[in-house]
């Protein structure tokens, strides 16, 4: 039975890029929430947690409205890059980020807030700019927690289904990620393919989870 490796390879690519982008955005938001007090902070706080609470198809619908071919942002994207966003693998990246960013913000913020305030004060007192304090003091002290959070975000991105299928679709060989491929195999009665994919993904998930756990345990000690 020939196995189509494309969904797996696509999912890995999408998850990697989504995690990288989510790290940049997520760490920045976590830093703001952990260090600054500003008006609208509660709104930002709620907004970052919202994607984890809303049903995926609801989020997918909102994204279609925003990024669809007729919509403002969708047309802007097409104008800049030359191709529409919806029903491409880039849309799958966006879909994955909608869960990866909230996860990272929540974990990273908790990690930043657990750093003894005096370390950051000492660094500022010794002449370091905010960037240097973050890069040389805060981040090294929270390195393992952040890494564990990133790994969990990667795992989550690997398996995204609801939002992905709504804005990236189910185009075999183009936007069919592994979760969508499993759904497709079950629907079309291809039990063998479904089973194979499920086993592979399960093994990957377990490996990733145990890795993340080990890192968090070492940080705590």
């Amino acid at each position: 039975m020939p196995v189509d490796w494309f969904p797996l390879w696509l999912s890995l690519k999408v998850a990697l890029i989504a995690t990288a982008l989510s790290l940049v955005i997520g760490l920045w938001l976590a830093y703001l929430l952990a260090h600054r007090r500003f008006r609208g902070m509660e709104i930002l706080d709620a907004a970052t947690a919202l994607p984890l609470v809303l049903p995926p198809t609801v989020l997918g619908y909102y994204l279609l409205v925003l990024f669809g071919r007729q919509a403002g942002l969708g047309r802007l994207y097409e104008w800049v890059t030359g191709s529409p966003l919806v029903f491409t693998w880039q849309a799958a990246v966006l879909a994955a980020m909608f869960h990866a960013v909230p996860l990272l913000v929540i974990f990273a913020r908790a990690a930043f807030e657990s750093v003894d305030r005096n370390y950051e004060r000492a660094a500022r007192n010794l002449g370091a700019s905010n960037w240097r304090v973050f890069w040389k003091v805060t981040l090294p002290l929270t390195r393992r927690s952040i890494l564990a959070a990133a790994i969990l975000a990667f795992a989550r991105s690997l398996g995204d289904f609801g939002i992905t299928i709504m804005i990236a679709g189910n185009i075999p060989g183009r936007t069919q990620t592994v979760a969508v491929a499993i759904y497709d195999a079950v629907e079309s009665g291809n039990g063998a393919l479904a089973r194979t994919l499920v086993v592979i993904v399960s093994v990957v998930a377990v490996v990733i989870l145990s890795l993340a756990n080990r890192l968090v345990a070492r940080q705590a000690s």
Partner: protein
Amino acid sequence: MLELRVQKRFAGRPDSAPFSLQLEFRAGAGVTVLFGPSGAGKTLTLDSIAGFAVPDEGRILLDDEILFDAASGVNLPARARHCGYVFQNYALFPHMTLRQNLAFAAERRPRLERHRKVNEMLERFHLTDAAGRRPHELSGGQKQRCSIARAVIGEPRLLLLDEPARGLDAPLRRELYDLLRQVRAEFSIPTVLVTHDLEECFELGDEMLILREGRLVQSGPPRAIAERPANVEVARLLGIFNLLPADIVELNPQSNLSRLRVGGFDLAGPYFPGRFKGDRVWLCVRPDQLAATARNGAPGANQVPAQLLRVVEMPDSARLEFAGEMRVQMPRAEYDKQKANKEWLVEFPQQGLKVL
């Protein structure tokens, strides 16, 4: 020279009382100690100087440079203030070696000079052997020396210390005081030190500022304050006096005498200028100024019968606690001779009594 005038208010909340800090002082060369009970606003003041806390109103000048001015909206960030800060728990970066901790502080210099400066500090503070270790591998004394070295390596214009001896055992305390004296001699950086330990004030302070509930109650050299506390409040904060309620029965300026009634007994004292007959005052006298002897018959001049409640024996002295909140301190040898006394008399000196 530090010139400070700050005001900061914390509104009351369901679980805590409102707090208001209102302080104005100048600190020149030498060590200025901010002394007071917990919650007096000492650390808040220190943090305002360092840039960690922002006052509501006021102005802070360091060597004529404005660090903070509420009126014109100037608030220099902490990194631009050039004040060395020694934290209570050292705050040495745990993920860096001792050498890296020092290098972090000297980051603004070109690499060669930074290297040289770090080595110089390591030597001066006897840390060369431990340079490659992390803070959790250092002894208490090494951590202490490193935290101070890190604070002075950047050649700050002011040194700030937050309760540096808190929680230290006696040998480490001695080491710290010696170290700070050495730093004062070698570096000559004006220093502001926060503490609630009176011994520290005497060991290190050139000038002492007593804070209570956000207000300055007395300032001056520690010796002068201990000799002449401004009022009962200060005397109580210092904790080194007997404070006994007394009435002035008689005043005689010509012969420089007075009579006081304390606990039903009359005492002769010096003339108290500015007081009137019939005044209710607090008699302020140190335990070592009082004497205690055995009672044989009637009490003599300035002797008051007293009931001994408790004796605390220390290596070099003994503190006798009598009813009526009288404490007498005498050398151990003398107490040993008097141990067997059944009844006691507390003797007040005729001169040297103070009233507040």
